[in-house]
């Protein structure tokens, strides 16, 4: 039996695999433009969305993707507070195993939870975000969006701005952009940067200074509790230094791609003028999400074991 395929982090993918996912996603974005946006490829397969964090947008994106492929979808949403008291992750995994599901899409506040599930389940595991660790489908959809806007990515420059320390979006996104040969800048106050510099990433504290170099700006969500932890003195001060607003947009390259993983804190990390600017790619990211997740689901579940392509 062939080894079960998983998508746990972008490290699992070679550059060639990434290109394959993006190419397949492009075919699926064509499917999504058809009058009937549904294909029978995963008929009879069952996909479970196992969400230990409330994330309506990511769960819906995976749910739509699976349904467009004709898979059956079950949603299991719970909170970690009930997890600590209630059923263990292992027992939940064994329950899903007994039900015979084909894929588990897991979102969990603790880094590494998808790796635990892989030990206990035969099903394909898709990491939909674990703690501060990884979010590979977000990284892939970001690449899809970037490629759509910028064409060849090799040599292009992207800045990730904001709470890089706590961001799985940044961790996976930076790895993915590096793998495609992009120059990556990390811009944040020192207290929101990782304790050691990320490999191959140029760190800076001055957003205005790097602005003219960037082909793309990736604005990260600022969670209010970071201010309560004392990582910066006030939202006002943060906003002044790191918000993407009309003034800063004026210094950017004319066709700079503005990205955000959502949901946005308008008025904190991004101002309306930037979020709604014509070159903002934020809604394009959402659209890419469905196509990319279809591609990943299809690539993990579409094939069988071994076998040969027949004419």
């Amino acid at each position: 039996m062939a080894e079960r395929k998983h998508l746990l982090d972008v490290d699992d993918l070679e550059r060639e695999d990434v290109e394959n996912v993006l190419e397949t996603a492009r075919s699926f974005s064509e499917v999504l433009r058809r009058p009937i946006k549904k294909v029978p490829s995963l008929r009879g397969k069952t996909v479970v969305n196992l969400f230990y964090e409330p994330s309506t947008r990511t769960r819906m994106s995976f749910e739509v993707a699976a349904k467009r492929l004709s898979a059956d979808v079950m949603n299991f949403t719970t909170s970690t507070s009930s997890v600590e008291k209630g059923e263990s992750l292992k027992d939940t995994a064994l329950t899903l195993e007994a039900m015979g599901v084909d894929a588990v899409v897991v979102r969990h506040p603790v880094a590494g939870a998808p790796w635990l599930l892989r030990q206990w389940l035969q099903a394909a595991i898709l990491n939909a975000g674990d703690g501060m660790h990884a979010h590979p489908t977000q990284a892939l959809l970001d690449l899809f969006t970037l490629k759509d806007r910028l064409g060849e990515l090799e040599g292009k420059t992207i800045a990730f701005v904001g709470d890089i320390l706590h961001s799985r979006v940044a961790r996976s996104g930076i790895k993915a952009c590096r793998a495609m040969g992009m120059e990556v800048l990390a811009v944040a106050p020192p207290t929101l940067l990782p304790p050691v510099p990320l490999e191959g990433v140029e760190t800076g504290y001055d957003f205005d200074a790097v602005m003219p170099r960037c082909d793309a700006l990736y604005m990260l969500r600022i969670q209010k509790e970071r201010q309560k932890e004392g990582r910066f003195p006030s939202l006002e001060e943060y906003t002044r230094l790191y918000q993407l607003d009309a003034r800063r947009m004026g210094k950017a390259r004319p066709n700079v791609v503005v990205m955000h993983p959502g949901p946005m804190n308008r008025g904190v990390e991004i101002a309306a003028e930037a979020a709604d600017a014509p070159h903002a790619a934020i809604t394009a990211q959402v659209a890419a999400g469905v196509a990319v997740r279809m591609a990943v689901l299809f690539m993990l579940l579409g094939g069988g074991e071994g076998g040969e392509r027949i004419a």
Partner: protein
Amino acid sequence: MRGLPDLVVKGARVMDPFNRIDEPMDVLVSRGRVAALSADLEAEGREVIDAQGLVLAPGFFELHAHLREPGREDAETLRSGLEAALRGGYTAVCCMPNTMPPLDNATMVEGVAARAGELGLADLYPIGCISRGREGRELAEMALMHLSEARVRAFSDDGSGVADAALMRMALQYVSAFGGLIISHAEEPSLSRGGQVNEGAVSTAMGLRGIPALAEEVMLARDLLLAEETGSRLHLAHVSTARSVRMLREAKERGVPVTAEVTPHHLLLSENDIDGYDTVFKVNPPLRTSEDVQALREAAADGTIDAVASDHAPHTVEDKEKEFDFAPFGMVGMESTLPVLYTGMVEAGAIDLMRLLELLTSGPAGVMDLRPPDYGAGISEGARADLVLIDLQREWTLDAFAFASKGRNCPFHGLRVKGKVLCTLKNGKTAFRAANVGGG
């Protein structure tokens, strides 16, 4: 001890750090004591252990074990913990007071000591809490614990650091009245809060919150200053960073009355050994960088570090089989200490065998200021026959599922090791004997 048959251990290489002995000798054990040592003893019909090619050493002393009783008997009991000790070659064990409820008063420590006495396995030295309820707010009744039947001589809030500097200062001042020892679990909580692994490249790559080396170093620096100022004896539990070692070395040079221990896992494993998200590697202090490991190995060799302590911390499978953030910190150690350190330190050329035995016997005895007849007579005529017989040639695979401890959370499980405890004598009696030991 009347009624015990006499026993002759023949042909062993006797290694005794207390009396600086290292030579092949026969040892006669009679009435629970070492009755004679000489180059050639006649068996004269006594029971004989053929110990040709084996090492005979004083039983080891464990400075730092969590035996979980009372409160978490599902994870370990005094019985399973002390049996594990004997299997590991230990004949005496200090148990940490972070039980549920904690050992913070005379009644509690007496209860634990009495229970261990009834079991008649390894000797137990309970450590009392520094603060009432181990809450870090007010001093526990340390003098009453010292005066109790349990004769508590060391105190610690191990499991967490004493965050309040004034409380730590008073604890050090207070125990000087009766020569008590304060053991510091150095961890500044405001720096370590939420941390899971060492802060640095590995925590960043794994997306886990880090415990910075600073969390240990800031409090350790403070406690060294407090010990210097008060003149009270301070012991540093599980030192884990290169900078801690440097500060310790400087303090000792200045004459600060301080001792320190290191665990086998901090001597042998670094943060890079964390395998996937396997929670068996989740331990506090966390596994540090390879530079830290190197500094600790040097400090264990040159005497800056006085003792090895296993920080034996058993947990149930259910508790460890969890998401990384939700699993408890800790590794079991007593049944793997000798083989992993012989393999990873002595065979690796970091220290010689006598230094390893010092770290396991005279080193910890010095920390606890123990003297004969309690512990520390070594292998001399009249000494209590608490002895361990070791086969250094034996290669075997560590199997946590064969441990007497209830804990299976051993990071060395499955490791091929050299050196095995074959037999442990407690008061002259065979308290543990591995299968297929020759002789008799």
